[in-house]
Structures are given as C-alpha cells and as structure tokens.
C-alpha cells in the first residue's frame, strides 16, 4: 500500500489466499500486496491478466493446484472486493486500483 505510481496505468491489488491452504503454493504467504501493469499497452487490467501474472510471479509450486486451463481450478472461489467473480464477469472482471482479490479453496473437513 502507499506505492507511488508513474502513470495512471498501474493497478495495485491485494491478493489474499486466506482459506483452504492455497498459500502453501506461494511460500505460505497469505497476503500479497502487488503492483501489476496492464499488458501490451492495454488500458485496463482484467482478472485474466491478473491470473496470468499470479501464476507467473506468485505460485512457487504445483501450479495445477491453482489453475486449470486459463482459469482457476475447480473448487476455488474467486472474490473481487468480497464479491464472487461470477457476479462481475469472471475472467473479464475489470480491476481498479486497490482492488482486493481473494482466492478461496473450498474445505470439506469436519
């Protein structure tokens, strides 16, 4: 938080892997404050760009536990600002500065 931006095309997002052990895929760090630039001069950053970035930069092991194809694997809920990404267009969800994206792996234990 509180990073300086060169131009207005930088998006800072907070990533969190709070529930379900997904943080184990990135050195057990649960919350990541990241600064992601839209690709190829695009003006907007969407969830598809972000997933690509997360896979390339945060996931340290077993990427198949996070993604399948170009989206998250079955059993992971994606929340953008505490809201299911189904409600905002899944991969096409446009991200704004300081958006909070949370990945949750469903639990089955009891």
């Amino acid at each position: 938080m509180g990073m300086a931006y060169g131009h207005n095309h930088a998006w800072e997002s907070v990533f969190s892997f709070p529930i379900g052990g997904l943080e184990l895929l990135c050195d057990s760090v649960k919350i990541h404050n990241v600064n992601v630039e839209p690709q190829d001069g695009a003006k907007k950053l969407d969830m598809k760009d972000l997933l690509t970035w997360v896979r390339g930069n945060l996931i340290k092991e077993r990427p198949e536990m996070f993604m399948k194809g170009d989206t998250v694997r079955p059993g992971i809920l994606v929340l953008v600002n505490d809201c299911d990404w189904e409600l905002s267009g899944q991969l096409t969800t446009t991200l704004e500065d300081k958006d909070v994206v949370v990945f949750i792996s469903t639990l089955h234990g009891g």
Partner: protein
Amino acid sequence: MESNGGDASRILREIETLKATKSEIEQRISALEAQLREIKVDHGNDAILNGSCPPISTNHSDFGHGLSPDMVYRYSRHLLLPTFGVQAQSNILKSSILVIGAGGLGSPALLYLAACGVGRLGIVDHDVVELNNMHRQIIHREEYIGQPKVKSAAAACLSVNSTINIVEHKEALRTSNALDIMSQYDVVVDATDNAPSRYMISDCCVVLGKPLVSGAALGLEGQLTVYNYNGGPCYRCLFPTPPPTTACQRCADSGVLGVVPGIIGCLQALEAIKIASTVGEPLSGRMLLFDALSSRIRIVKIRGRSLQCEVCGENATFSRLRFQEFDYEKFTQSPLSTSPLKLNLLQADYRISSKEYKEKIVNGEPHVLVDVRPQHHFKIVSLPSSMNIPLPSLETRLSEISSALEGESDEKGTNSRSGPQLYVVCRRGNDSQRAVQYLHKMGFTSAKDIIGGLEGWARDVDPNFPTY
C-alpha cells in the same frame, strides 16, 4: 511377567463388571427420575384442582402458542427476546432438523439444537467414538469410546433436553437411504467431512426441496453457508466440477484445531434455528469465511442460483431416480467413507512387512531407513535411526540417501553381495510406495517400502509405539 498379565486381566474384568453395574444403575436412575416427573405433574394437577385458588385455565393451548408451563419456563430466555419470542420458539418446537455427522461440526450443532427444543432432531453417523476424536467432538464422553457416535450423541442430547424427540440413524448416508432419511426433516445440517458426501447431500436437498446448512472446517479455517434456500445457490451452482482429490484434505491427515469446527458447528446451529423459526436473515447467497489464526471473519457475497446448474438449474432433469443412480465416489474420485486410502503400487518384492523389518534390525543387517513423512509428523514419533526426507523434497535430496548407504556399507562392511538395503517408511504405507517407485526409477534398486507404515509397526510389532 505372568503375574503382571494375570493382574491386568483381573483388573480389566473388574472394570467390565463395574461398567455394567454402573450402566444398570444409570438406567435405574433415569427410570426413577421419569417416574418422579410424572408424579410431580399429577400432583401439580391435583393441587390445581383441589387448591383454594381454582384455575382460570389449565389448558395451555388456550394461549395460542402450545407451550406448556414447563416449556415456558425452560425456554423463557428465548421468549424474552423481542425479535424471537413465543412464536419463533413455537416454530422451533414444531420443527424437525437432521444433522448429518456427529463429529467436530455436529457436536456443538446437536447440543444447541437439542437445547433449544427442536421438536424432532435426527442424527446420522455410522462411526464409533475414538480417543483421537475427543479433542474436538465435544458431545462424546470418554465412556463412549468404541461405541456408536449416534448412540453417544443421542444420549448427550437427551441429557440436555429430555422433552424432545431424538432419532438415531446409525448408518452411513448413501444414495440408497438419503431420500428416505432426509425427507423426514424440514432442515438439513451438513456436518460431514468429505467431498462426495457434500455433493450427495446438496443434490438430495435440491431433489427434496430442503434448505441445507453447510459447514466445513480444516486446520485453522472454517466455512459456512446456506444452500438451496430462498433463491440461493446449491452446492453445485458454486462448485459444478469437483476439485482434484489432492485438494481435498481430511482432518485425519492435515489436522484441525478442536475449537475451529466447534465455532462453525455453533454457527450451523444458529442458521438452522433461524430457518426453523423463520426469524432473521439466513446466510444464503453469502458465505462466511473464518480464519482462526488471524482472528478474521469475512462474509462474502456469492452467486445466486445458477440457471445452468445441472441439479437445480432451469433445465435440470435431476430426479429422485437420477439421484439414486448417481455415483458420487466416481464423480469426486474420493471415497464416501472416511477410511484412509490404501494404495497398492508396488510389486511384492519391492515391499517388506513391519515384522520382517524388525527381523532385519534384530539381525543387525546393514540398511538405511528413510522416513518420508512431513517434518512435523516426524517430530511426533519416529523409528530409531531413521532419516527424515519428506516426500516432496525427495527429488532434491537423493545424494543424502546415497551417502547414508555408503556410510552404512563402510561401517558394517559389505558381507552380502547386494550391499546395504534401503527401506522407506511413512505413516500408513502410501507415500512410502510412491517414494519407492521413484527411488527405483532413479537407480536405488534395493528400495523397499514397509507395508502399512508406522501404523502397521505399532499394530504388528510394537503396541506401545504411539499412533496418531
């Protein structure tokens, strides 16, 4: 030794006798208490009829809510709540709730549901109480270890509230009996511990049109939501495709802090009470996420009912018959029962029993023992002179095994042609097979796994070896 053995069996016999006597006495006490209650009720009526103050009304149904004087007193703190009151309590008393699973989630859920006066409370479980349940499954008492959880849970609920009807379903929930059992209740509470059960219960609730209070807990985290209620999604709307089996961890493997399912189970009771009493705003279309370690509770908005859902969607054809024929184990690639996985990956001569391994130790045969469990498991207990190389790091630590084998060969001499042997052990004998498979591929041709792992060792060789 012999006299010790004699003492032990004498003590065991005496314990058995005393337990039987205790159980008889407890039954007698319960019977007498019930008699006493009846006498009090009769006596009370006599007093009213013969007393100096004739009753204005002795029929409590005259108040319109159907609560007896005892009920008014028992549930008075509910009745005093302006937002709950006598109407909500009356709804609860007439309601029926089914709790599937009398474990970590089901324990507090059942106790609260019994205490609050749910008219008919059903319990489904096929398991028996075990010592390693006690830290979280707080409904069970030590004297019930080895007995069915349903029986133990029903006794506990009855001891909290003897006025409700408790129904014991001592069976595993399957597609063959789920419709029959679940159709007898208004609200279903999913307190199970595996993915196929969760899909099965949700689908059955859709077929029967029942609201489902779903909770889950693992490690230090919990989740809670209400499915199939008031236009909200079902489990399949949210998770149309089952996760890979590697993402389905169990408490028995990954551990769980006892109080975490306790908290989620309490919240499940709350949601069930809200639905049964028609008070408040149940957690439908929202999901509660609980992170115990950082003390964070987050409630997020989830999608509504999906029109494309295969089970509850607009064009869904998921009928009772489809449900009964659906193979949930195949669908999720996981077993419905909680019995641990038993792999059989290796040919017989790549394996050795724990008894055979003990012979090797006794004979002083040169060997290296690699324990492939995670480090925190190794810290609980391990076999003497075993080296810990967790399975995920095996690939990068092969040189350590090579040096250990060389060291063993130098120390004890190579009197056999094959040199020191390599054995691999884990908790139950699955990961050790995976490791041996890999080790053979990498040229460690003497590698063998110890069948059944440390649990096998404890069972067949050393009964004092701790299991977990």
